């Protein structure tokens, strides 16, 4: 007796296998973020944006580009792209040993999510920041790469506790400081959270705050 075919449908198996060899069109998700109304300039140029940095709208599945994912959004002018990606960056000296690079110019007509990714890359490159997230004025997550609700919760509470007195940080691991930087924008107060190896000095905090403000509300 055939030990295989009575237990499965060869046509179905073949179909399923062939499906796996074909490209899949990535889904586009709505980029309407809570806390920002229609007057927010970041959403005025288009109704729908891809929210995933890994999105490969123009790359077929059979041709993945593992280190440089093709974004679904149009490429930025060279002048506003980060000079090198995180994966290509050489080991960085500690933050205290060097001055951060000047922030990239925030493009006023690009979408908010595009600008926040540029900001994220700048922050990671210059301050060795990881697990970056941004909360809106209601404490909802606008952007997150940490995946840790506990960090959001902590940042939210720290931001409330520090209202009016600037940034605050807390040591959460042997080489991990949660830096919480509230930022007043025309659309309300947003809160940046990021893990850094050492607490950041005041001038760095001010610079981050300015760049975040520029990112959230470009001129």
């Amino acid at each position, binding site marked *: 007796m055939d030990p295989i075919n009575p237990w499965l449908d060869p046509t179905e198996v073949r179909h399923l296998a062939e499906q796996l060899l074909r490209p899949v069109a990535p889904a586009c998700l709505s980029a309407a973020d809570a806390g920002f109304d229609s007057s927010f300039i970041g959403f005025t140029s288009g109704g729908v944006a891809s929210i995933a940095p890994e999105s490969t709208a123009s790359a077929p599945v059979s041709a*993945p580009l593992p280190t440089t994912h093709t974004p679904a959004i149009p490429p930025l002018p060279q002048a506003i792209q980060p000079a090198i990606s995180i994966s290509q960056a050489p080991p960085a000296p500690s933050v205290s040993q060097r001055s951060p690079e000047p922030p990239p110019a925030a493009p006023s007509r690009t979408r908010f999510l595009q600008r926040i990714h540029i900001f994220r890359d700048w922050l990671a490159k210059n301050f060795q920041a990881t697990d970056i997230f941004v909360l809106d004025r209601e404490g909802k997550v606008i952007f997150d790469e940490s995946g840790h609700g506990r960090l959001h919760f902590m940042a939210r509470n720290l931001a409330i506790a520090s209202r009016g007195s600037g940034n605050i940080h807390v040591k959460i691991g042997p080489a991990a400081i949660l830096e919480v930087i509230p930022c007043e924008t025309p659309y309300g107060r947003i809160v940046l959270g990021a893990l850094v190896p050492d607490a950041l000095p005041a001038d760095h905090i001010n610079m981050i705050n300015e760049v975040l403000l520029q990112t959230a509300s470009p001129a």
Partner: protein
Amino acid sequence: MISIAISSQKGGVGKTTLSVNLAHAFARAGLNTLLVDADPQGSVGLSLTRQSRLLPGFYDFLADPGIPMERLIVPTRLETFSLVAAGQASDYEAGNGSSGSHLARVRAFIRNATARRYDICLIDTAAGLFGVTNDIISTADAIIVPQQAEPLGIRSMPKLLEGLNRLRIINPRLNVLGVCLTMLQQGLAESTEAASALRHLLPAEMLFQTSILRDEIYIRASAKGLPVGVLENGKGAETVFDSLRAEVQAKLARSRAAAIYQPH
């Protein structure tokens, strides 16, 4: 860097043997290789010394954002070959949780590995398409499916293919490199017939030409916690994984990513 999940629907199909020896083959070929034990019941971690097994690992990284990647990486005698054990976190026991709950942390792990200039990251996942395994496959660039050459294993194929099709909705760029027949017993009719049936069932490009035979040398290698090529008389088995590695690279090259995967 390219990340490849080694995943199967069924347990006990030789997933860890394939992961360890394929990773070793990549490392010997000059690629900076990271092998990650994401299988709480797997043997990559058990191959490590007792002291190394107490190190934090993959599941600790998922659970605790304060753990730096450096603390997870276990170097080996081969400079291009490093390991990450499964770890000590509570999820180590369960290894699952609901799908999606660890997606962001798995992505963070891959980003960290990429930043450390690994060329390739092989992730030995827990069997079954659920929990953290789903999150890994939803993040990885590619997947290899070890499939034991025996009838019951082949019968699980539709479920596996359905699961992968579902996961490709979440991860449309997932490159299904193919199914690799393992534990093939050439002297056993049921095993060779199962292998033959699978070759008829699947499109040719979905099945690796290289098959892994059932051989006592793999048991000896795993008992010593070593890749098979390190053993005396292991060179023959080692060439099998060199062949598999070459197939993987050829498939990746066909995916227009060749330049990234060439040895330094």
